[in-house]
């Protein structure tokens, strides 16, 4: 079965640089979520989108922005990167509805030097 696709899988950036992470949901899934998982930490919710509109917002820094496109893929844009942004960034997708399961992608491992 098709899964959530994330690119790139690994990314190395310098402080103050920008990064763009991409997420392609499972076919026919219309809701996308972004989570950040620091080393040894639990995943923290950043933001979600349904039908290209922001649906829920968590602890996403103002330096980050995200959007969902007409083909339902999503991009997380990160600017003025800080050392503390080094983490695993997961994207998840689900079908619309409050009883839908979120399926996670393999993640993008971001290292900020």
């Amino acid at each position, binding site marked *: 079965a098709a899964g959530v696709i994330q690119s790139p899988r690994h990314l190395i950036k310098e402080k103050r640089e920008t990064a763009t992470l991409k997420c392609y949901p499972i076919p026919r899934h219309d809701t996308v979520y972004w989570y950040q998982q620091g080393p040894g930490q639990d995943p923290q*919710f950043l933001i979600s989108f349904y039908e290209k509109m922001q649906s829920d917002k968590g602890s996403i820094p103002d330096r980050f922005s995200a959007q969902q496109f007409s083909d339902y893929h999503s991009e997380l844009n990160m600017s003025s990167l800080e050392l503390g942004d080094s983490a695993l960034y997961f994207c998840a997708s689900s079908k619309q509805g409050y009883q*839908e*399961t979120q*399926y996670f992608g393999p993640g993008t491992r971001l290292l900020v030097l």
Partner: protein
Amino acid sequence: AQSVSQHNHHVILSEAASLELGCNYSYGGTVNLFWYVQYPGQHLQLLLKYFSGDPLVKGIKGFEAEFIKSKFSFNLRKPSVQWSDTAEYFCAVNARYNQAGTALIFGKGTTLSVSS
């Protein structure tokens, strides 16, 4: 605000031992409940979920969990663990609002180490 508490940070078992991982949540409304597993270096995979109905749910790989509403608990169990169950286990909840895109709130996770 919702919160999830996992009682055990690290559990060490021998193969064939029984497993129970505790999970309690804090939220006044109706929730959906999940257990996810994360094998070393891999992404989160769904083990099982509870939305409604029978409070005892069965998942993949022989895992099951029981929702006890009065205790706000959703403990994960497996009668006999295998070495391959070594992984990080996360309990998660999301509030059952009538909208899409509701965030999952995760517990801190429990590291399970199974020795052969």
